[in-house]
């Protein structure tokens, strides 16, 4: 038995489990089950320690953020300026990166684990109010977390003087309303302030210094926080015993697309390779219909694409970065030999163009323009000039070298991550990344689609009334 009808998508396995240990129970979301399986024990033990002590425990666990950037949580908590209060915790449950889902499962299946994680973080980092921001489209997750919060308040785990201590905190449930960009932490804060979810500039708006209401604010991802009860209960040493030194613990990874057994897996961090994931018996069991693997996206829709050449890389941030992509939010999308590559790139570019917040010009104008050029290429009305134009328009979003994977067939060396960008956040570049990857790795498929170059009408800008 490796999957459960009450947790569609999740596939269990005989591996160490940190955050999915209760998924095997149908009632894993209830307070009763949570308490019966060691729930809130971590909180109890934490309250007996000093906040500083607990913070150090998390720091030594090297728990990496699971939202995409992979920054150590314990370090992040320490970035708040001394003596500035109040400080807030904002929980990023606005999961919407294409290919990604694990926060939704953690909220639906084990909301108390997340709540306990929030409490531990607030206690350790001196955060005096917690806002739990759940993506608007996730109705079930909202219901489960609301119920769990109500039960935890009633049981005295949240609120005034928790478990008789001086620790008092409210956790406020907040729903979004449909905007991918709000997953970016400064946009999330804007949204939580009741504004349009448009990212702020860093600097100066690093949330840890100037966040919600201008106060120091820690933004942590749902999966990140869900690890804390384990660390609190079992200690950092037991946590770091799993995974590698630079990437300890486990990670939840969603593998979707053209594989035999797509699913969300909790894997050992840093050691599991892409080949394990795509072909391993305990994971995806190979490509569907015995087809060949053509390409895969290793870290959510924003990540540059990989080829079969990269299959033996482990699921580890630095190595993947050096190979020309990123791990992002833990999502692999697999394309087999039947895939129409330009069309696949178009679905992603469309996504990011649609989700542009409109704040920066390169993303607002460039994303849509890329989409329209690519659209005519896919429709078969483009020209070879359009292929160059795609790269040039992309260059206005990401000037300079773009990261890409190595290819033995194409005799191509890898260009490491990251890219330069003219935008504030990653949405703009993300519209270009799939175009660039697809064009770099599969140019012939594009060339087969377009007509030879014709003379494009070039409209001189400066001819019209510019001088005076």
């Amino acid at each position, binding site marked *: 038995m490796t999957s459960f009808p009450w947790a*569609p998508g999740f596939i269990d396995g005989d591996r160490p489990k940190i955050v999915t240990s209760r998924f095997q129970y149908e009632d894993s979301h209830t307070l009763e089950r949570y308490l019966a399986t060691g729930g809130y024990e971590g909180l109890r033990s934490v309250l007996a320690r000093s906040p500083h002590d607990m913070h150090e425990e998390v720091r030594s666990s090297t728990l990496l953020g699971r939202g995409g950037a992979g920054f150590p949580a314990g370090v992040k908590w320490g970035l708040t300026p001394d003596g500035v209060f*109040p400080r807030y915790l904002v929980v990023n449950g606005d999961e919407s990166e294409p290919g990604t889902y694990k926060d939704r499962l953690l909220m639906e299946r084990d909301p108390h684990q997340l709540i306990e994680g929030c409490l531990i973080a607030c206690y350790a980092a001196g955060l005096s109010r917690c806002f739990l921001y759940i993506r608007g489209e*996730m109705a079930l997750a909202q219901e489960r977390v609301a119920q769990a919060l109500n039960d935890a308040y*009633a049981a005295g785990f949240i609120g*005034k003087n928790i478990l008789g201590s*001086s620790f008092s905190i409210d956790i406020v449930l907040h729903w979004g309303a449909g905007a991918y960009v709000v997953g970016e932490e400064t946009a999330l804060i804007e949204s939580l302030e*009741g504004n349009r979810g448009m990212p702020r500039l860093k600097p100066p708006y690093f949330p840890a210094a100037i966040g919600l209401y201008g106060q120091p604010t820690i933004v942590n991802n749902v999966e990140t926080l869900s690890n804390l009860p384990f660390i609190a209960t079992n200690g950092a040493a037991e946590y770091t015993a799993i995974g590698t030194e630079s990437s300890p613990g486990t990670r939840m990874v969603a593998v979707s697309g053209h594989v035999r057994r797509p699913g969300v897996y909790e894997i050992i961090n840093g050691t599991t390779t892409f080949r394990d994931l795509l072909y391993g018996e305990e994971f995806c069991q190979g490509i569907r219909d015995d087809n060949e693997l053509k390409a895969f996206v290793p870290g959510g829709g924003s990540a540059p694409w990989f080829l079969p050449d990269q299959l033996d890389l482990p699921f580890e941030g630095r190595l993947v970065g050096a190979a020309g992509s990123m791990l992002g939010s833990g999502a692999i999308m697999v394309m087999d030999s039947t895939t129409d590559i330009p069309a696949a790139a178009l679905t992603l570019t469309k996504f990011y163009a649609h989700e542009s917040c409109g704040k920066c010009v390169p993303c607002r104008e460039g994303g849509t323009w890329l989409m329209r050029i690519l659209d005519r290429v896919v429709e078969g009305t483009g020209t070879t000039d359009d292929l160059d134009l795609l790269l040039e328009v992309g260059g206005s979003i990401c000037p300079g070298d773009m990261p890409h994977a190595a290819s033995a067939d194409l005799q191509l060396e890898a260009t490491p991550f990251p890219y330069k960008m003219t935008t504030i956040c990653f949405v703009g570049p993300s519209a270009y990344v799939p175009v660039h990857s697809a064009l770099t790795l599969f140019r012939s498929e594009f060339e087969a689609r377009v007509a030879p170059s014709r003379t494009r009408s070039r409209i001189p800008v400066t001819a019209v009334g510019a001088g005076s």
Partner: protein
Amino acid sequence: MARLTDENVTLAKEIIDRYPRAKSALIPLLHIAQEQDGWVTDEAMRQIAELIGVTPAEVLGTGTFYEMFKFEPVGKYLINVCGTMSCALLGADDLMHAAEEELGIHEGGTTDDGMFTLHRAECQAACTEAPCLQVNYRYRFRTTPVEVRQLISDLRNGRLDDEIPPHGTLARVRQHIPADKGVGAVDPSQVTSPPEWITASAEGGAS
């Protein structure tokens, strides 16, 4: 109905009180308005503006940023067919065509009887269960065109009334912070000192 009912105004005020600054309640209040009427009316936006002390233009500005808020009537059932990568790779177009045919409308349209609105949606965070769709944000995983037709027929005949509330209702469980348990929200300008347990720990532990 356009303005919020008395009951919803009470609920709105309870929600506003949870935030250190009232404007933070803007999105939750728009959800309440949409739950009440199925879409967000001009009158409701004006009332929300009054409740949180901003201009109606600010409410509109925030509201229209977010996909889920509808500023004109939509069907009782909003069918969102996911069209992003994994779903696209595994047949999202077929689902859309089946739905279009069954409903007699194009993507973006609403049926004449006001029962259904059909949209292509962006990634719904269920990529391993592709192709998928949501009806009023309730999932249907690994769906086939046949199942889509059956789903529409079930919705038409009210067979899913228990499972799927009308458009506007998201979570049917709301957070409620009991008055005697809640810590309460304070405007950040009124706070300068560390929280009590941090001060207490300096003097030797929280409990």
